[in-house]
């Protein structure tokens, strides 16, 4: 019995190692990440600079595709099923995000290691948990969420307006734990609670009014 288990574990380890060393180097060999799932991978400038992923999205929805990498410079590209580029995030850091509305079907994601060395990363594709509208700078919406200790949460807030600037807050019933007040169209908070319980996500307008979308992923 133990021998069988050892063989199974060995096969799993081998499969994981094969994937890390570049099995998903092209769209044909793309690994699958499920919608609202968060996958792990590694890219290395020498030997394995590219990982391809694909995701199936059942119908029209708002999504964020995020890359949470460690060290150096990673880039992320988002493609249609026919491999037309739809969005890219190629900043100078290891974290990247693209966002917006999709009509559904298969989509491809390329993770590219731009700088030298290797980077472990999380790749997540989240559909919007909630959408809302803020009526100007005084307006604020508050949502309650249960969060488990030791789990990492990624909370994204997006909008599509050049004049609307919503901000994102995470709080307990007593105080604000984290905030994101980016002036762009994406805000993000990454948080791992040490205590399980209910927390509050607040979305407030720093300026303007408009639609927003809120996404929560965890692993």
């Amino acid at each position: 019995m133990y021998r069988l288990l050892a063989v199974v574990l060995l096969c799993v380890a081998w499969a994981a190692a094969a994937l890390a060393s570049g099995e998903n180097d092209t769209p044909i060999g793309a690994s699958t990440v499920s919608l609202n799932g968060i996958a792990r991978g590694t890219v290395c400038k020498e030997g394995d600079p590219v990982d391809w992923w694909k995701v199936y999205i059942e119908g029209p929805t708002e999504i964020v595709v995020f890359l949470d990498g460690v060290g150096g410079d990673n880039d992320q590209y988002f493609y249609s099923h026919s491999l037309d580029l739809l969005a890219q995030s190629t900043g100078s850091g290891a974290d990247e995000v693209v966002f917006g509305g999709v009509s559904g079907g298969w989509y491809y994601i390329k993770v590219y290691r731009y700088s030298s060395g290797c980077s472990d990363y999380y790749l997540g594709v989240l559909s919007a948990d909630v959408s809302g509208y803020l009526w100007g700078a005084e307006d604020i919406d508050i949502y309650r969420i249960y969060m488990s200790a030791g789990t990492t949460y990624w909370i994204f807030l997006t909008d599509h307006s050049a004049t609307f600037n919503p901000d994102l807050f995470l709080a307990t019933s007593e105080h604000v734990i984290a905030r994101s007040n980016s002036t762009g169209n994406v805000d993000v908070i990454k948080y791992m609670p040490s205590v399980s319980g209910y927390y509050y996500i607040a979305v407030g307008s720093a300026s303007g009014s408009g639609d927003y979308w809120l996404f929560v992923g965890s692993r």
Partner: protein
Amino acid sequence: MRRWMGVSLSLLPLLFLLYGCTLLQERPLTVNGYWQGGIQGGAEEASRSVQLHLLQNGTDVTGWVKFISGYSFSIWPITSGTFDPEARTLSIEATNPEDQGEVYSFVGTVSRYSMSGEGTYTDGDREEGFTWSVQRGEGYADLNGPWEGEISGGDFEADLQFDLAQTVKRLEGWINVKTESTMVVLTISSGEVDQEKKLVTIIARGTPSPAKEESYTFTGTLLLINGEWKRMLGTCHFSSNETEEDLIWSATKVSKGQEIE
């Protein structure tokens, strides 16, 4: 002690003035680097693209001139060249490596980001004049990411998508050849960018059906768009189990925002 501090403080504006003046000193004008533009008039064609790679050593200038016409190009070494930084004038001669009688001479004035002037072309028998102008481009060609373009030849016509991952001069990735009815994904088996000459060579293979293997050998030159190496074009040798063909191709680097379109 306090008096010395006072003296030191009183000297600060002077130091700032001197240091500031050093900062404001203009960098010396050089012609080093890559330039691209066009020549108008002259031999055979009314207008053609030209690229220069200039290496300045004192007043001597070496390097090459690349002439690009349609999907073909040729590189001519600079056989004599001088740059006078005081007068801001450049004079170079480039000779056809396959026919030493063919010579292009360029004479012009130089500014930091552009050069222009007049020139002559001779094939040994006749001489023709032309005007030229070029703009400065960046030194390093970053080909990483997606490119879109076309490939054609004879009755064949298809859209091209390159997706390149570059490690200094090595290119990896895939190429998508899309017609109205078919889509073949090719894997790059060997790819290289010549950073000095700004040339690309890519060999890609695919199997559109189990019994059919296809091979594409792309050779081309990079072109500057707004100072960046964002376009490439050239010829492609296609071969499969059934046929061989020479094609032409071009592609432009694609750039999108973070918001999904």
